[in-house]
């Protein structure tokens, strides 16, 4: 009974593709509520404890943050390329673009890990009972800033890890996938990747820049 569509529910490939994209958008709406809730918590805290947050924000590494922003934006560019290549059925460059995308994702995670390590060493990570030492006004709320910083960036990193894993899985299955499936899988994962990127575009100014 299996037709050429992946889901038995659809008669035509085109309708299925539209449904996949729509489903991805609904999922992104859901994800936006997740990050939105935590971002809202951060903004309320930022209004209440402005000076402490400003001082704490100074201690984040702006060069590493900027580097990561550049890396992630470039990865999104690579994803767009993958998109264009699949649309014009140029499979080999598409695969390379996808590899590029996920490698840049890994670079981002690596830089983030270096940053975390630095913060642990400087005693700025109120995590796992690590000692927290902060000189400056209002260390209590500076600690709150770092608590939120770790919560938000680790949640974002988790999403990025999922994205890299899904691209890797897709590439592993690539040879056995029909051309039409390739196109709409790249489209769906592309939407997700751009969303994760956009989340960072919100996090970066809010955490690194707004308080300077």
């Amino acid at each position: 009974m299996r037709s050429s569509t992946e889901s038995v529910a659809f008669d035509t490939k085109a309708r299925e593709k539209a449904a996949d994209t729509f489903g991805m958008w609904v999922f992104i709406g859901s994800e936006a509520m997740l990050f939105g809730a935590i971002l809202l918590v951060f903004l309320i805290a930022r209004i209440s404890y402005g000076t402490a947050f400003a001082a704490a924000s100074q201690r984040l590494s702006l060069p590493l943050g900027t580097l990561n922003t550049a890396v992630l934006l470039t990865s999104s560019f690579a994803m767009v390329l993958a998109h264009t290549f699949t649309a014009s059925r140029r499979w080999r460059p598409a695969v390379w673009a996808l590899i590029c995308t996920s490698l840049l994702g890994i670079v981002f995670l690596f830089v983030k890990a270096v940053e975390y390590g630095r913060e642990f060493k400087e005693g700025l990570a109120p995590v796992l009972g690590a000692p927290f030492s902060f000189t400056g006004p209002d260390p209590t709320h500076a600690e709150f800033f770092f608590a939120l910083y770790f919560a938000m960036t680790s949640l974002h990193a988790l999403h990025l890890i999922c994205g890299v894993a899904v691209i890797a899985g897709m590439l592993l299955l690539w040879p056995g996938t029909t051309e039409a499936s390739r196109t709409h899988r790249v489209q769906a994962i592309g939407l997700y990747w751009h969303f994760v990127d956009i989340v960072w575009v919100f996090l970066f100014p809010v955490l690194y820049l707004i308080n300077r």
Partner: protein
Amino acid sequence: MSFGIPFTPPEASSIAGSVDMLFYTLLAFTAALGIFLASLVVFYAIKYRAGSKAERTGERARSLPLEVAWTVASLLIAFVIFGWGAALFLRREHPPLDALEIAGLGKQWMWEFRHPGGQREINELHVPVGKTVIVSLASQDVIHSFFVPAFRVKQDAVPGRTTHVWFIADEPGRYHLFCAQYCGTQHSEMGGWVTAMPPEDYAAWLGNQGKGDTLAADGEKLFRALGCSGCHEKSSKVRAPDLAGIFGRPVALENQQTVVADERYLRDSILEPKKEIAAGYDPVMPSFDGIVDEGEMQMLLAYLKSLSPRAATRNEATQ
């Protein structure tokens, strides 16, 4: 009361009557509407049961005027109930002047009260009839809730902030005091009795409780013991704000903002002194977080309030 079975809670405070008035009015309204709808459904169910000879012509699947009518009617009734409930509720914000302020501290699993004269009691609260009593609530650990059904009052005690509840008991007697917010293992044991007594009995009772120091006096001792007075006294070498009359007064901050020195401000200034620095002073005060517990905090606040006698009775400033 009938056969010893309670149907209603005792009415023992100045607001109990007006809350019950709303309750019973709403009860009458909902009962009438409920009975009307139930009768309607039962009537239809019998009249239009399958095989009955009822007239069925002229059936309709919608009627715009009817639908608009019941929507508008529901809205209007809802707004009336809302307004009534809200008007009664907002009185919580405005206790009458000249109140007796008692400090209440919730901790797992007991209520501890301190009267202005320093008398301390646990899971018992004695109050005079006919006098406004403000209980300022704090919590040592988790969220608790001060609940006296006979007074129709309830207020959560939240760690890290001070909340208030006020009432005027108008009927002498012993009434249940509960913790209404689930607070751990012995939540159901956290409570006791509120005893409302005529003012002269209350005065006599206070007299029999032994001569403890007043809350404010304890606060003053603490103020010295912790070394606060070393900087905040006028003769001190370190320049720190003079605290006389501080409570209820606007304070200019270094960041060009102005805040009213309410309980929240004083508490934060003790625990997180660097958060809001008064204009013109250096941020040199150490934090007393972890040094001052909630009970001691209440003493210090009582002392600071006693330094501005006029403002202390104006409780609105604390909200």
